[in-house]
């Protein structure tokens, strides 16, 4: 064999080296810290500032949170307990007000024995939107979705079951007329359907409901709108506004792009007018100005009035968001739809809107979140919103006078949970609908 053998070289390694852990500075938490927090003098400075800011807030508010009192009957009792436990001058949160009045934050003045109704309505809301929002929900449930709005109104406001049923019948009538007249043109069909439905609602519903209720009295205890408050009010307004403003917004966006002069003008004027006016103004119109137009004694429900104007407000914004989505579509998509020989509605339904709406999802959800938070503005027209209306009257009880931050923290936390859920859902939807770059 050759001269080179094991004895003639100093050392030959015949096994692999065992892998060594990375140097301390290049691994684990230290590396993460170095790369993410201290990667340069600017980032180091920012990190230090950030930590100081967090320390500032925690050191100021931690004791307030930690000293929280949950069991007391008044603010004075809270203070007494905090002083007794943590010494003179200690501050603490008086969560007892939430414990004592949580039901008013959630339900307003809704009768306690009827709380099951809003709770059931809220749970059924997920059954109704489930098939629309999530793929894993059985599609058969979709039949429940169009029934739900009427069921929800009946459950929340109570009264005779015939009112909501007849309003629903109005929609069915409109659809029948639309499909009959629609042969002679979709606009004629739509107009005829709308006219029939509105006439039916204006003149048919209340006498018919009276007759039917006399024949078959089927109803639950009515609850007037004045009893609505807190999150029940906010969610009713928010959910109602969201459900109605999306279709209205899409129609307005299409109207604004229409070639027909009247429709285009109307859409533009509506959108620009509503967007140019503060929501507060519209709320004052809803609560005050309409009263002057309507005959005295007309019971045009205040929540309905506010909901209509909130819907119009957010529909104007949705319309612009959707218009952005429409504008982002390449012209080829429109031309392709024309080349396939699709008529206007089919082209919109099958090709344009699915793509435009997908692009608009973040904007639409932002508008919804904004609108849901804006429902707290109804405090200015004397409705009991959870943020100002409810805490204000709780403070009017001498036991809780002087309470300030606790309701804000509580209500803010609930708003955050609801809005964060909406935001996460929209991200989920964006991912699901992702069709490019797979």
């Amino acid at each position, binding site marked *: 064999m050759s001269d080179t053998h094991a004895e003639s070289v100093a050392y030959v390694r015949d096994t692999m080296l065992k892998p060594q852990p990375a140097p301390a500075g290049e691994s684990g938490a230290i590396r993460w810290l170095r790369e993410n927090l201290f990667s340069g003098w600017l980032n180091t400075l920012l990190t230090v500032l950030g930590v100081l800011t967090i320390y500032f807030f925690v050191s100021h508010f931690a004791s307030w949170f930690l000293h929280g009192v949950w069991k007391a009957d008044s603010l004075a009792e809270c203070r007494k307990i905090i002083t007794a436990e943590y010494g003179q001058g200690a501050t603490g949160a008086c969560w007892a007000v939430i414990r004592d009045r949580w039901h008013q934050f959630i339900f307003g003045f809704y009768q306690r024995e009827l709380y099951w109704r809003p709770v059931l309505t809220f749970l059924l809301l997920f059954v109704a939107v489930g098939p629309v929002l999530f793929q894993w929900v059985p599609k058969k449930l979709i039949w429940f979705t169009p029934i739900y709005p009427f069921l929800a109104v009946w459950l929340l406001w109570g009264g005779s079951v015939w009112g909501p049923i007849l309003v629903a019948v109005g929609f069915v009538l409109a659809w029948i007329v639309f499909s009959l007249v629609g042969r002679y043109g979709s606009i004629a069909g739509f107009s005829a359907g709308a006219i029939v439905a*509105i006439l039916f609602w204006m003149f048919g519903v209340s006498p018919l409901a009276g007759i039917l209720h006399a024949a078959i009295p089927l109803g639950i205890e009515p609850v007037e709108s*004045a009893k609505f408050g807190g999150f029940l009010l906010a969610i009713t307004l928010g959910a109602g506004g969201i459900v109605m403003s999306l279709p209205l917004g899409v129609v307005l966006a299409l109207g604004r792009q229409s070639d027909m002069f009247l429709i285009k003008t109307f859409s533009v004027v509506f959108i620009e007018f509503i967007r140019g006016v503060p929501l507060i103004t519209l709320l*004052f119109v809803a609560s005050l100005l309409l009263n002057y137009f*309507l005959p005295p004694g007309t019971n045009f429900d205040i929540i309905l009035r506010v909901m209509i104007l909130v819907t119009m407000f957010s529909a104007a914004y949705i319309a612009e968001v959707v218009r952005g989505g429409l504008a982002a579509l390449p012209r080829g998509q429109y031309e392709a739809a024309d080349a396939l020989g699709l008529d206007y509605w089919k082209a919109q339904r099958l090709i344009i809107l699915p793509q435009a709406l997908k692009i608009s999802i973040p904007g639409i959800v932002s508008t919804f979140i904004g609108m849901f938070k804006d429902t707290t503005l109804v405090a200015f027209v004397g409705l009991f919103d959870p943020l100002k209306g409810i805490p204000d009257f709780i*403070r009017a009880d*001498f036991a809780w006078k*002087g309470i300030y931050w606790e309701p804000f923290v509580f209500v803010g936390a609930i708003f955050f949970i609801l809005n964060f859920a909406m935001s996460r859902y929209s991200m989920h939807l964006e991912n699901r609908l992702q069709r490019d770059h797979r």
Partner: protein
Amino acid sequence: MKKSVFFGALTAAALAAGVAGAATLDDVKSRGELICGVNTGLVGFAAPDANGNWSGFDVAVCQAVAAAVLGDPSKVKYVPTTGQTRFTALGSGEVDLLARNTTWTYSRDTDLKLQFTATNYYDGQGFMVRKDSGVTSAKELDGASICIQTGTTTELNLADYFKANNMSYQPITVDSNAEGEQQFLAGACDAYTTDASGLAATRAAFANPQDYVILPEIISKEPLAPAVRQGDDQWTDIVRWTIFGLIAAEEYGVTSANIDELAKGTENPEVNRMLGTEGDLGAMLGLDKQWLVRAIKANGNYGEIFAATIGEQTPIGLARGLNAQWTQGGLLYAPPFR
């Protein structure tokens, strides 16, 4: 398309509104319910409890009127109104009666077409300062920063007072009483000003009330009076004389405890006329003979209502002061029932 129908309906409705009559009493009776505009929440004056039942000094007026007109003090629907919405709510007919600690002023009476019925509380604007500031009189507040609610008469009074005394101040405007308290406690302003009744309640709710003083000066007249719409004199009279009735009942010693006894007839002819055992004063208002008996039974006479809601035995602890009977050196003076 939907719009045109909507506006058509509005026009028709506006025409109908012009034709409608003004007889509030008939409306209330046929509805079976008095709609009363109240504060969205003011300690002692109007506040709903944990079950949503309203009580308070202003609420008692609503209940007395409901008792007089409908025979049941519980037949009241309370419509919470804000400082901005209250007058429109009354003017548009949304409420029958506005019992919402509202100051009776010239322009509200004339320009806003309100009819103030009778003063049920004489208030006035005061100041609260921290004790360690050493301020003992409002005259020493020159240059001070002052927390004040916007949109109220207190804002105007403050400007008038400082101008009249040739002093300057820096207003820190707040939206609500609760916010004002927070600003004042946090040291954002040297003084907090609002109606004296509100100041007393605010101070009583502080963690350390002894560290704050209410200055002796009352810089304005704030006669708080329930209001109704102009143009329905009968309804105005009903509300006005219900309040006078509660005041007179205290003067003549008619209480919720002894009213059943007195309603059988007394030595005093005026009490007899009030309680319907002599003459028929109720008919002149369009009501029955027992109207005032029911109104007094609802929550007691004026003194009883005061003691139960804002008086010295309550945490708010207001003294009668100007709101004592004229015989006790106060301003309460009900015209004769005859």
